[in-house]
């Protein structure tokens, strides 16, 4: 599904965020991306949904090199990727249901599709009883569930989560990761950048470790491996 070949990213200010990274992720995998702060985890995820472009190397998404996408094609790439953020990035003046249906409205989905998919997504994340609440009335965990519902509502084959549990307490973090695991079991590929040792060690999934912009470890059923 994702195939990065010798990818380097140097930001305009000269920071070498990624150096010669090669990484393959197959369809249906659940991958943790770990590493110290500044290792390049966020940069790597941004390259995949084309928020940033690589300085060198190729990134194939389902065989298509997204490093050479025309600007007009970028939105259509992003419709295949659900992105989940540490700070949720919800619209504060929209309700839960509106935040989720927003994802379908902006890609001009039909009304019928919206009416069908939004309740399904909210059901999946367990928020069916909170559809009319606004984000400020929700707990952090609930807000992140809204973020997940919005990411999965158009059934993308890939979910990218950048520290989705970074703002949550351990118990809520587990709920969120279990939810992502459920989604993964339904066939969606999940790539999750995290600092959460307990979760990584507890899940026993593939772990890719970055340090100073390089892949230093890539293990199936791996562990977090840092003491922080």
């Amino acid at each position, binding site marked *: 599904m994702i195939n990065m070949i010798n990818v380097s990213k140097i930001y305009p200010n000269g920071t070498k965020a990624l150096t010669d990274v090669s990484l393959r992720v197959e369809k249906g995998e659940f991958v943790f991306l770990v590493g110290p702060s500044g290792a390049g985890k966020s940069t790597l995820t941004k390259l995949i949904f084309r928020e940033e472009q690589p300085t060198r190397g190729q990134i194939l998404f389902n065989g298509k090199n997204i490093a050479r996408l025309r600007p*007009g094609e970028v939105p259509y790439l992003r419709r295949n990727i659900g*992105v989940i953020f540490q700070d949720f*990035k919800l619209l504060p003046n929209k309700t839960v249901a509106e935040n989720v249906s927003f994802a379908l*409205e902006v890609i*001009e989905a039909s009304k019928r599709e919206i009416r069908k998919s939004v309740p399904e997504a909210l059901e999946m994340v367990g928020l069916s009883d909170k559809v009319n609440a606004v984000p400020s009335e929700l707990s952090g965990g609930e807000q992140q569930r809204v973020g997940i519902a919005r990411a999965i509502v158009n059934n993308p084959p890939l979910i990218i989560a950048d520290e989705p549990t970074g703002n949550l307490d351990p118990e809520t973090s587990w709920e969120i990761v279990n939810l992502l695991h459920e989604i993964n079991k339904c066939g969606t590929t999940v790539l999750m950048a995290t600092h959460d040792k307990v979760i990584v060690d507890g899940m026993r999934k593939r772990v890719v470790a970055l340090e100073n912009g390089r892949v230093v470890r890539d293990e199936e059923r791996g562990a977090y491996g840092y003491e922080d």
Partner: protein
Amino acid sequence: MRIRTISYFIREALKSLYRNSWMGLASMGTVAVSLIIVGLSLITVMNANYLAARLESNVEIIAFIKSDVSEDDARALKNEIQSIPGVSSVEFRSKDQALVEFRKELGEQQNMINALGGENPLPHLYKVTTISPGDVEGVAKKLELFPQMEKVDYGKGVVEKLFSITRWVRLVGLTVIVLLGLAAVFLIATTIRLTVFARRKEIQIMKILGATNWFIRWPFLVEGMVLGFTGALIAVLIVDFSYLAVIDYVQKDLNLNILGLQKDTRFLLLLGGVMLGVGTFIGALGSGISMRKFLKV
């Protein structure tokens, strides 16, 4: 494009117009003022052109004949005048005919003539028109050379003056229009930039969710176009109503039909259409400018 999408664009545009109503009013007002000036200068130029054309076709040379020349001798000049190059028509008016006409023009104050005691002080005269306005001066000079002529008159310089006025109106109008037009574009761009700024988070989310740039752009374009169009509409109403009122006043109260102000509905409609189009374009241009930068990512 789906109807629902279009209604979404319009809804979003109206929402943010409501939110930024002061900036919106300011930019709308600028569009209105600049278009009012556009409209008024166009109307002035149009009327001046019309007046000039009328005067031009009216410029005739009047050659007064000396009082000691007899009517027969005077009439005999006709062929000679006709043969001057550039002359189009020659019309003789005897002093008696002239008196009859004079009486008619005076109407009720004919006793002025009676006071002359049967004397006719008017001269015989020729009315000469030329083929083109450029010939007027040359023909007049030739007529002055006739020994029988007392005096030769023509509307010297009137047309030229009128044209210089039109040129001036055009120049000043154009300068003001360009400056105000730029101000209007700038104000609309600023208004839209405020909207964009207020919604930058939403825009960022929309992009991550896979919205196309045009989907993001449209509400802002619509907002700018609504501002421009509304400003233009105000301008059209003001220009048209005040112009019609002026015509009415000039014709009825001042009884100055001779000014020949044009009450040309087709022209006014066309002018209105052009102003609305220009206003909408200014709006689209303003919002286009303010969005170019932030949509690049």
